[in-house]
């Protein structure tokens, strides 16, 4: 709003600005601007000093404007203002204050003139007033009431909108501020919209605190904003109302809040404690929580996403130093919408409903779920509290009319029938009666009867009966068997089936008896003497006896007469009748308490059969199949009887009748046992007489024999055994005998025991005897005087029986022994002969090999050697050729421990003292008595050889000594005359007659050795020789090739010309020395 002057000048200036656009001269423009500026300054000064100013108008109800202005400067009390509003009659008012209430002006500009009169001066201000310049500021709202519901932590605010002062309907926005604690912390600032309707209206607003109101003071303020569409001026908020607060006054000992609330699982909840003491600890369950401090010592804790509670709730505890306070919160789930609601009526008088409550709420006791059931027909409500009953099944009583009944017929589920009874009608029918509570007079019932009979399948029969009002029902059940125990049960439903009732209790009932429907199955056997006929019959099965059989009547009739026997009580099922040779018809009748059965008849005559063969049959499982060829002569039925073959007469265990047109029968009996032989007899009925058609022996199942055949040895020879055995009794055979297995092997009693007869052993011989009539066996091709292990086993198709063994020794075979002796002898003779022949034919070779010639003594320079040597040294007197008796030369092969004297010992009768190398000087040692042989070498005489053989020269181990020698073979070639074999050394050449004579005289006595006087050889192997340097004197003497104890054949013949070469030849010492090296 601005004054008119100002407006005018503004308008004027703007006009002048507009004129400026008309291109005035520049100096004129400057003058005009200066003028305007001065004028404005003047105007401002004049206004500040003397006229009312700053006119403002507000309204709080849109009907009255409250306008005020500022008084002129310098004016005070006593200033009178005259306010005039144009276009209004009596529009001027004179007043002494600077505000005025005027009725709301119409939209548009209105000129208001304020003339201030003060100290006889006046100043006038003119204002243009428009509604747009008026502010709408509602009155400050006033809270009528602020209350709190502490149990729900809810604040209730009440105030009046004072809408009656507003001429129009207007929207009002209320702004409410909730503050907490003494410090007035802003907790909530909410807006609330209402409408002014021209009347004073009290408004309510509620707010639920997240914190229990008991724990802190809460303040509330309110203000409003009127959004009037008709008002075009400024709209402003009202001032805030005075604060109203709510605080809790302790009126009980409860100091922890909220108390025992039920909250949704997952909620956020704040607990607080009003305490005068310092709270030390807060915990929920066993978990500690941080404290939120409120005014004073009050504290709070905030729980986020609380979990489901136990039945007894979740404990929240605040502990101070001296006390403990707490509360319990029950966090659970809201109940689910009940599912699967199912209602049915058992009697059309009440309804039983059940439903699925869904997820458990985890709330029990007083906090458990309440269910309300509404039945629309009757309009009844029933409340059910799901406190502790696990099943949600409840019975509600409703009165139903027939129209309603029809609608729920499909849900009829009757009670279980009671008072169930059974009553006889006749032997094949009974009446069932029962009670079914409820009034089913207008519907039909479908009932199901369960009939159980022993050893029979269960039978269900459905019956439809008309519903009754008196609940008693009855139905007849027929097609039953007489004298049979039945078990009945019944259950019912509506005819339009919905659900069966439960079964009634069982009722067992025995139907009454009836006369036996058939006569007993009969057979007859003649006694062994053929005078008596024994009648057999089988007890009637229960379905044919139709009652308890008390007795049997047996009668026999012929063409002339009919004879009736006395009554035979039930347990007995045979009768014996003495008959003559006439043909009779035997009748058997069974009787029970009701009457007699039709008679069973059988002829006594037995037609002979000459062409009867015994056959064999083996059953399958527990059955035996018998077949036969059809016989048109058989006019009545076939009868097969059987018995155990080992039982005594009469042979009858059971029988079976088959129709005459049958050609086979399967015999089955519980009495059949495997391994037992049975006799089967097939009878054919012909002209009222029975003829035995076939006789069969058989087994249900063949088993192995239970015993071994008893066998003995009948005869034994050097190469065979005759065995004989006995047949096995039928009872122990347990099957058809198929043969015997005979095993035999070499073996002693002790060794064979541990060796079984397992197959695959090559040393066991088996003979399979399939001819079961054979009872002996000869085992041939055995060895004499040998123990045999014999085993015999019988076998059937059921397997091998046990074995029986025996040990038998065959007799000695003398011819074989003789042959055994003669053959080696003959072989030895032949070998000897052949050897002799060979030796004879190869004698030259043998001689050269084993008896080479002794070298020619003429070539021996032994004497010259001796002479020359002796001339040089008188000390060497070895080989002194003095005549003497021949020495006994003994050549021995000894393996002495002495390295030098190894196996040769010279025993001299002259010097027989033992050689001791340690005691004998080398010079003395070489003294060996030697007698030159006096033998005419030039006249070889075999006799002399023989005489030489008598000499005391003993050659030992010639063969071994010869082997490494190669030279003698060459000698043999050079001197074939003397090359064969050994010659005694008596072939020295005779130098003188004296010597020759002496030699002849002593020729028989020269059984000694002749020195092989080869001087060169001796020289070579003298003690001075290099090879003998390390040896003692004895060895030297032995090492001489002409030594008396050397082997003359070892001297190579060529040594005579080459002494040195002979030194490298073979010698005894070499031989002995080399031997270890070998």
């Amino acid at each position, binding site marked *: 709003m601005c004054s008119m002057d100002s407006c005018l000048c503004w308008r004027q200036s703007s006009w002048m600005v507009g004129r400026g656009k008309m291109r005035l001269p520049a100096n004129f423009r400057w003058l005009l601007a200066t003028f305007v500026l001065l004028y404005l300054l003047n105007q401002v000064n004049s206004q500040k000093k003397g006229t009312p100013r700053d006119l403002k108008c507000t309204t709080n109800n849109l009907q009255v404007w409250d306008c005020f202005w500022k008084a002129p400067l310098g004016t005070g009390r006593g200033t009178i203002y005259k306010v005039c509003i144009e276009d209004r009659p009596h529009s001027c008012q004179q007043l002494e204050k600077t505000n005025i209430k005027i009725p709301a002006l119409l939209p548009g500009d209105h000129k208001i003139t304020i003339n201030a009169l003060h100290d006889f001066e006046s100043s006038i201000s003119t204002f243009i007033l428009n509604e747009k310049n008026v502010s709408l500021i509602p009155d400050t709202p006033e809270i009528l009431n602020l209350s709190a519901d502490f149990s729900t932590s809810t604040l209730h605010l009440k105030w009046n909108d004072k809408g009656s002062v507003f001429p129009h309907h207007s929207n009002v926005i209320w702004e409410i501020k909730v503050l907490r604690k003494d410090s007035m912390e802003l907790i909530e600032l909410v807006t609330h919209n209402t409408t002014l309707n021209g009347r004073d209206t009290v408004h309510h607003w509620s707010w639920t605190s997240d914190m229990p109101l008991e724990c802190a003071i809460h303040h509330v303020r309110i203000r409003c904003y009127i959004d009037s569409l008709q008002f075009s001026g400024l709209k402003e908020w009202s001032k805030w109302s005075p604060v109203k607060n709510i605080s809790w006054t302790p009126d*009980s*000992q*409860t100091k*922890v809040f909220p*108390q*025992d609330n039920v909250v949704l699982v997952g909620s956020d909840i704040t607990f607080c404690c009003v305490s005068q003491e310092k709270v030390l600890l807060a*915990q929920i*369950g*066993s978990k500690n929580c941080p404290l939120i401090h409120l005014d004073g010592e009050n504290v709070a804790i905030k729980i986020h996403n609380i979990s489901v*509670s*136990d*039945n*007894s*709730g*979740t*404990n*929240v*505890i605040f502990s101070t130093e*001296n*006390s*403990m*306070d*707490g*509360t*319990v919160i029950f966090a659970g789930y809201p109940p689910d919408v009940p599912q699967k609601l199912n209602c049915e009526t058992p009697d059309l008088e009440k309804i039983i409903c059940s439903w699925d409550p869904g997820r458990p709420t985890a709330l*029990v*006791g*007083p906090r458990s779920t309440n269910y309300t059931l509404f039945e629309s027909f009757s309009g009844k409500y029933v409340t059910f509290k799901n*406190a*502790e009953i696990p099943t949600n099944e409840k019975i509600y009583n409703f009165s139903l009319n027939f129209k309603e009944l029809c609608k729920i017929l499909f849900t009829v589920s009757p009670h279980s029938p009671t008072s169930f009874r059974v009553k006889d009608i006749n032997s094949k029918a009974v009446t069932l009666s029962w009670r079914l509570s409820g009034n089913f007079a207008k519907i039909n019932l479908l009932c199901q009867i369960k009939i159980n009979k022993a050893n029979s399948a269960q039978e269900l029969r459905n019956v439809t009966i008309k519903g009754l009002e008196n609940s008693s029902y009855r139905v007849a059940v027929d097609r039953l068997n007489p004298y049979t125990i039945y078990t009945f049960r019944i259950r019912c439903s509506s005819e339009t089936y919905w659900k069966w009732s439960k079964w009634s209790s069982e009722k067992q009932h025995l139907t009454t008896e009836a006369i036996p429907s058939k006569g007993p199955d009969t057979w007859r056997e003649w006694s062994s003497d053929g005078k008596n006929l024994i009648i057999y019959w089988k007890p009637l099965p229960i379905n044919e006896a139709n009652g308890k059989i008390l007795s049997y009547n047996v009668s026999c009739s012929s063409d002339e007469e009919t004879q009736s026997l006395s009554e035979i009580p039930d347990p007995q099922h045979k009768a014996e009748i003495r008959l003559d040779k006439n043909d009779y018809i035997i009748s058997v009748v069974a009787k029970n308490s009701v009457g007699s059965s039709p008679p069973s008849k059988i002829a006594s005559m037995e037609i002979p059969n000459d062409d009867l063969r015994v056959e064999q049959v083996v059953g399958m499982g527990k059955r035996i199949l018998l077949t036969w060829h059809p016989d048109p002569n058989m006019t009545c039925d076939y009868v097969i009887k059987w018995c155990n073959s080992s039982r005594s007469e009469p042979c009858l265990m059971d029988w079976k009748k088959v129709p005459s047109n049958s050609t086979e029968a399967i015999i089955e009996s519980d009495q059949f046992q495997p391994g037992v032989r049975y006799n089967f007899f097939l009878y054919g009925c012909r002209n009222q007489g029975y003829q035995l058609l076939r006789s069969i022996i058989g087994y249900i199942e063949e088993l192995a024999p239970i015993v071994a055949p008893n066998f003995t040895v009948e005869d034994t020879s050097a190469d065979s055994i005759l065995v004989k055995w006995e047949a096995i009794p039928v009872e122990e055979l347990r099957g058809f005998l198929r043969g015997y297995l005979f095993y035999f092997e070499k073996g002693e009693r002790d060794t064979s025991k541990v060796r079984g007869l397992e197959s695959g052993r090559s040393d066991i011989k088996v003979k399979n005897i399939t001819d079961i009539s054979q009872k002996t066996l000869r085992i041939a091709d055995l060895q004499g005087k040998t123990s045999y292990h014999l085993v015999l086993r019988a076998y059937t198709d059921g397997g091998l029986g046990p074995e029986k063994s025996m040990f038998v020794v065959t007799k000695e075979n003398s011819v074989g022994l003789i042959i055994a002796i003669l053959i080696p002898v003959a072989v030895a003779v032949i070998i000897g002969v052949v050897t002799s022949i060979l030796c004879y034919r190869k004698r030259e070779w043998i001689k050269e090999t084993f008896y080479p010639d002794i070298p020619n003594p003429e070539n021996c320079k032994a004497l010259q050697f001796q002479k020359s040597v002796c001339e040089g040294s008188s000390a060497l007197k070895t080989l002194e050729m003095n005549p003497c008796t021949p020495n006994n030369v003994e050549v021995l092969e000894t393996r002495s421990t002495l390295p030098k004297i190894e196996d040769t010992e010279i025993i001299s009768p002259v010097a027989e003292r033992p050689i001791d190398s340690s005691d004998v000087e080398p010079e003395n040692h070489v003294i060996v008595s030697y007698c030159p042989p006096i033998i005419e070498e030039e006249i070889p005489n075999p006799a002399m050889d023989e005489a030489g053989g008598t000499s005391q020269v003993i050659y030992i181990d010639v063969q071994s000594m010869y082997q490494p020698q190669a030279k003698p073979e060459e000698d043999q070639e050079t001197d074939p005359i003397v090359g064969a074999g050994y010659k005694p050394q008596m072939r020295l050449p005779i130098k003188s007659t004296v010597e020759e004579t002496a030699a002849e005289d002593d020729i028989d006595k020269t059984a000694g050795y002749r020195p092989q006087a080869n001087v060169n050889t001796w020289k070579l192997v003298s003690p001075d020789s290099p090879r003998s340097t390390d040896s003692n004197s004895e060895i030297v003497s032995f090492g001489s090739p002409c030594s008396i104890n050397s082997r003359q054949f070892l001297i190579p013949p060529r040594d005579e010309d080459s002494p040195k070469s002979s030194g490298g030849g073979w010698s005894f010492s070499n031989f002995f020395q080399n031997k270890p090296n070998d």
Partner: protein
Amino acid sequence: MSSQVCSNPSASTAPLLPHTPSRREGLQIPALPACTFFLLRPSFHHKGAQTSSPASDPQADTSVSFLPHLEAKIRQTHSLAHLLTKYAEQLLQEYVQHQGAPFGSPGFSPPRLPVAGLNAPAPGHAGLPLQERLRLDAVALAELPPLLDAVRRRQAELTPRAPRLLRRLEDAARQARALGTAVETVLAALGAAAHGPRREPAATAAGATPAPVGVFPAKLLGLRVCGLYREWVRRTEGDLGQLLPGGPA
């Protein structure tokens, strides 16, 4: 002064099942052997000399036979108290199991607030004369059943699916009543007044906590009642044990 009792195991080990609702059933006094004689301990008589019972007469102490059936009654009542001590322990364990955490936690020890209508055992209980102690025992045992019943009712709402706890609470009320009656019978047999001067209602209410309205205070009260039940039957067992030959001095 000495005592001699022919051994009668059946008297000392007479089965006292927890379900002994009636006084007649719970206090059947078995016959003792004819050779039984029982001499009361001097401490009891000296401290309980105010009674005029012949049993408390020092001269009577020297008599050979002192009410053989009394010993049997004391022994039987002591056995009952011994049995109930175990049952009270089991009840307390069962109770804390169903109250949720932190009940039953090792560090959970709420203040032992007084219970309206029931005295807590005084710290100087052991210093009182035996007769007075027994009288206090009988009074407390008579006051416990209604409190145990109240706890059971509250627990029936709070833990309806804990039938064993509810059954134990029900049995405990019945057994406390039976034991209290048995102690009164012993006191009467000894010639002491079964009921001493009843507490004044004001005294009973003084310092007592009013009946709790919240669930948590109810839990605390139940815990306290079960604890006091255990404490009283334990004290009763100890006090009766002092009457038995061979008991602690």
